[in-house]
């Protein structure tokens, strides 16, 4: 007589194995507990330095969940002619011409400690928050696009069209600059950025200033690299496996 497999026991076993793996090596899968939320009315402080760690070896071929999650969260829509529509996060396919090795890597605002976009902004509309999240104050932006010119990663955008279906949590306006906000509205509530939530295992979010945070432990143990490190911009976004 055939019996139904005990799926509940299998799930429990998988969870136990996963927990054991994370306890031994938190970098095996990039999963971190939600960061601590900041009480309402308390300003961001430089005691925290938010960052992202992206394991490109876990970025699956054809997957765009991070892009879709960001688009849904912030209300931007890509898909127009290349380079025309803002695309706060996009996936790069990169191949080493010598070895033929290919990787995929999501690219968004790198949240630099020394952001060139904020340096060039004439009105301080682009600014770095105390916890190193780089943002644009849409009410101060004059739409000169100097920040778009100054970004070495091509992740700062200018909205040249009317916005019909904007999200309240993510203000956008025609004639102003915009880019990834690291989902400040979420992280201030102690939640993960939308892209990280959509891609557990390949993206990890956390406090780079906290030596005991999982992201710091993984970085300390396994290392990662910043894009165009020669520019010494001190990005909050780092990549493993490039």
């Amino acid at each position, binding site marked *: 007589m055939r019996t139904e497999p005990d799926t509940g026991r299998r799930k429990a076993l998988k969870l136990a194995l996963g927990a054991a793996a994370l306890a031994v090596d938190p970098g095996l899968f990039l999963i971190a507990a939600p960061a601590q939320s900041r009480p309402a009315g308390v300003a961001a402080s430089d005691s925290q330095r938010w960052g992202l760690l992206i394991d490109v070896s876990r970025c699956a071929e054809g997957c765009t969940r991070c892009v879709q999650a960001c688009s849904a969260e912030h209300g931007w829509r890509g898909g127009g002619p290349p380079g025309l529509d803002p695309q706060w996060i996009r996936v790069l396919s990169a191949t080493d011409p010598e070895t033929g090795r290919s990787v995929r890597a999501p690219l968004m605002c790198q949240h630099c400690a020394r952001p060139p976009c904020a340096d*060039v902004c004439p009105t301080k509309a682009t600014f770095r928050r105390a916890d190193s999240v780089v943002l644009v104050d849409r009410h101060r932006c004059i739409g000169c696009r100097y920040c778009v*010119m100054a970004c070495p990663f091509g992740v700062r955008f200018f909205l*040249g069209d009317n916005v019909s279906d904007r999200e309240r949590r993510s203000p956008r306006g025609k004639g102003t600059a915009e880019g990834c906000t690291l989902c400040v509205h979420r992280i201030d509530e102690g939640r993960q950025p939308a892209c990280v939530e959509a891609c557990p295992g390949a993206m990890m979010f956390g406090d780079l200033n906290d030596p005991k945070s999982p992201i710091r432990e993984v970085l300390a143990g396994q290392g990662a690299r910043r894009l165009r490190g020669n520019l010494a911009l001190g990005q909050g976004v780092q990549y493993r496996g490039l």
Partner: protein
Amino acid sequence: MTAIAFDNLTASPRRLWPAVIVLGAALLAGGLAVLVIETQGHHVTGMTNRVPWGLPHVVAYFLILSASGALNVAMVASVFRQKAYEPLAPFSALLAIALLAGGLSILVLDLGRPDRLTLTMQSPNPRSIFAWNVVLYTGFVAITAAYLVTLLDRRFARFFGVTSNAAFLWRFVLTTGTGLDLGILIAREELNSAVFAPMFISFSLTFGLAVFLLVLPAAAWLSGGAPDHALMQRLGRLLALFLAVSFYFSAVTHAFNLYAVPTRSLERFLLFQGDLYTVLFWVGQVLLGTVTPLLLVYRKQPIAAAAAVVLGALATLYLYVIVSQAYPQPVLPGLQVTSAWGDGSVASYGPSAAEFFLGLGGVAVALAALLAGCLLFRIVPIDLARAAAPSAALRAAA
């Protein structure tokens, strides 16, 4: 400074009205372009997020650089005490202010939110060269206007030395700021160099003098006269000298970028594989903008040489501004990168009609301001032909 009589431009109505109508049409077209861009959004232009600065910025850079260069004649007269140029010093200063107004009008009206311009003065970012440029532009207009007043009004003549020297120094600081707009961009390795400051100073000397050489005969034509032949020849030779220095700087940047590994592929693209860009460099900048005017000056045709310099100037600035954006940024150096957004490939850019008319409108603003200034104020020498006058003095100096 010797006493020279100046008067309003006495333009012949048969020549003035066609000029006014043409300028009015260009201003109207520019105004309509601004209306379309600001109501519809910048998606009606050819500019994209890959190429956020386009033709309007090229024309604006040309006018702003020309503004400080247009002051050449006034500075030669007032700082270097060359009496032969004194009759044209006020015209030179007015042209400088008018060109700056034209260039700035393009930059301001191309903004995504021009209504917020005052924020650049209310809370400027001291780390931003743009914010500094607002001070430099405003200061240039104020100092040049003060220079003009001390030049024309004998009551303030005792300040003439201060204003003329201040204007002379300020124009170099101004153009240094304009050059560093591009030079400080670490994201664009082919631009990221302090050499853009002296190179843009040389460009300003060249472009401004070329514009002066075109505008002076036009103003003379309106009043039925003609500029002094000896003066034009002398300015033509000066133009050739400035042009040679400009080309030297430009050649050095291109040679350096061809040699340096990080910029080599971009430079090869520009010089040999860039289709329209390559044609613009070899035909526009080198042949039309450099070789031709040098030959024309040698053949004693300074006006034609100046016209060729202006066309070459637009090609030169177009290449510096556009190619640095269109060529893909090395986000992952050494790897071949692709994406749905166009990473790794050359971005396409073609100016739209709205951009063209916005640029044309800026030129019209400059020329209209110059014409209005000449008609309203006693700026031009009583006899423009005589203005250029002291041919004997010039020949003696030569």
